[in-house]
């Protein structure tokens, strides 16, 4: 596919993203104190979670409130696998595979449900997972959590973990763009634009939705692993079912379906409040209102704003930041 002059090729975007990541890795530790580096690390993990949410929510137009559950499953699975003696790469792959498998098991029967049904189903699932993490003391050590997790030995080293997280997030970001622009991308667009027509031309939308859900789950699991590596400690509180609404809010304000939106939304929700500590009381009330305003008047979110500011620049990914992404089932 020839790239026209106004579109970024995959390669150029890759260079851009990697360059930004390297720059952040070099500059942030210079300018940020230990404390803010920690915040930056957590922000990167949130970016990963929201990127995951993009697949099912942004591309697929399906409301999933289970992202925090996959976050938790990935984290605990990795921890338990490592403590069972498996080396890090094996434990990591195992954890991601488990998250994906759970995503498949949950997605397969439920993705035929309508919007609000699916929302509740995924929320109920998130609640159940949290309760199991707390109550199944034999497996998870209960509410006390698990301490002193070896990981890759970088727990608490905010600057070194910064590099690891930047690498993971950059990769995840590019993967999302690649998927969206690849052969799958065409089918995703068809699903978004007109599911009925898509089905008519032979797109298996059920399978597509399930695939998107599974990828979302895998990203969530990966984020869980990253958390373990960063902190060396996990407890069920980190994966509370209420936190799932935060990821949703980040996705919306950033711009549904946009990888750039995931980055912006996570930064705005996680990093910025730290800078504005004096108004923290009001911050999240304002954020809630912003969710309403964005979804009503500016569905492309912040990323839409940012991208349209680069006039003449119409990156491939921008097409996903349009409000098409929410034009799934119109009110009768």
């Amino acid at each position, binding site marked *: 596919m020839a790239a026209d002059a106004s579109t970024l090729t995959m390669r150029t975007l890759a260079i851009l993203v990697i360059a930004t990541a390297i720059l952040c890795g070099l500059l942030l530790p210079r300018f940020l104190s230990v404390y803010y580096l920690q915040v930056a690390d957590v922000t990167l993990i949130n970016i990963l979670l929201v990127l995951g949410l993009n697949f099912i929510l942004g591309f697929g137009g399906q409301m999933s409130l289970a992202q925090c559950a996959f976050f938790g499953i990935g984290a605990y699975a990795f921890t338990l696998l490592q403590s069972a003696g498996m080396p890090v790469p094996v434990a990591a792959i195992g954890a991601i595979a488990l998250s994906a498998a759970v995503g498949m098991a949950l997605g397969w029967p439920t993705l035929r*449900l*309508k919007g609000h049904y699916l929302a509740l189903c995924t929320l109920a699932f998130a*609640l159940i997972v949290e*309760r199991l993490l707390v109550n199944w003391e034999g497996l998870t050590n209960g509410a006390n959590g698990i301490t002193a997790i070896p990981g890759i030995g970088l727990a608490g080293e905010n600057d070194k973990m910064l590099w690891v997280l930047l690498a993971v997030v950059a990769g995840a970001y590019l993967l999302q763009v690649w998927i969206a622009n690849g052969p799958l991308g065409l089918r995703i667009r068809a699903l978004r634009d007109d599911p009925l027509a898509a089905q008519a031309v032979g797109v298996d939308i059920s399978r597509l939705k399930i695939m998107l859900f599974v990828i979302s789950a895998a990203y969530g699991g990966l984020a869980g692993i990253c958390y373990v590596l960063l902190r060396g400690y996990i407890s069920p509180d980190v994966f509370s079912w209420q936190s799932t609404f935060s990821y949703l809010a980040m996705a919306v304000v950033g711009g549904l379906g946009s990888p750039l939106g995931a980055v912006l939304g996570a930064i705005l929700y996680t990093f910025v409040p730290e800078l504005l500590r004096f108004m923290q009381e009001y911050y999240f009330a304002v954020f809630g*209102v912003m*969710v309403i305003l964005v*979804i009503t008047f500016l569905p492309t979110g912040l990323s839409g704003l940012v991208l349209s500011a680069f006039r003449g620049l119409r990156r491939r990914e921008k097409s996903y930041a349009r409000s098409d992404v929410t034009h*799934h089932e119109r009110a*009768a």
Partner: protein
Amino acid sequence: MLQTFIQIVLVGLAVGAAYALVALGYTLIWNAVSLVNFAQGDLVMLGAFVSVGWLANRLGMPLWLNLVTMLVILGLFGAGLAWGIYHPLRNAPQLSAIVATLGLSMALQNIAVIIWGPQPLNFAGPLGTTSVHLFGATIYAQYLVILAALAAMMAIQHVLFRHTALGRAMRATAQDAEAARLMGIPTARIIAFIFAYATMLAALAGWLIAPLSYVSSDMGVNLSLRAFAATILGGFGSIPGALIGGLAFGVIESAGSFYISSEYIDVIAFGVLIAVLMFRPQGIFGELELERP
């Protein structure tokens, strides 16, 4: 044994009555405008805070005046929601509307903390901690108040919907807003009224359950979740479904907690819900919806 059983069922019914009031709100709004208001539980919280935090604690209003005033305030707020949330999104896809109400929920909880502070508030309500003996079992008198209030609301609603022009207009709007409009019904105003009414139901639930425990900014979230589950159990879009679903869910929770396990009750209750969603999503009374959004 029987005595205990009665207590369990009565508590379940009382808690379920609160779920039913919230579920009714969900159903009415859904029937009218195909919107699921994820912030319905937070309206319960808002009603409780307005009543306790402002009217009782700040102004020292007598109880019944407190209730009426609070309902009026919340009714107006509900109408405001119709204008501010529903109206701009009336032609937007479902996902947008769900997201907007989730944003509203987030905003309301944080605003409540800003206005009334982070500490939970106590509320004695009409009966304080009086208990009554019923069939040999001892329960809070407040439970009976809740059940009586629910019964009263259902009666009022029945009269409203079946025997008044307003009620007919509401039903017409719910069935087919466009047709209703063409028939000369001021649908925008009717929709505002429906929102106001649903909000008042939620606020009433808040006023009724506050004396059983306390008022806190997160009290709505759990309630939302359970009432939503109850609505689906009963059948989304069905008014008898909302009522029965609410009461049933309350009893299931209460009985399950006693007879099976209090630790895993949430897992059980929501496991049941997921099963219902997978095998019979229309619930007890609902209709199986096909491609209708």
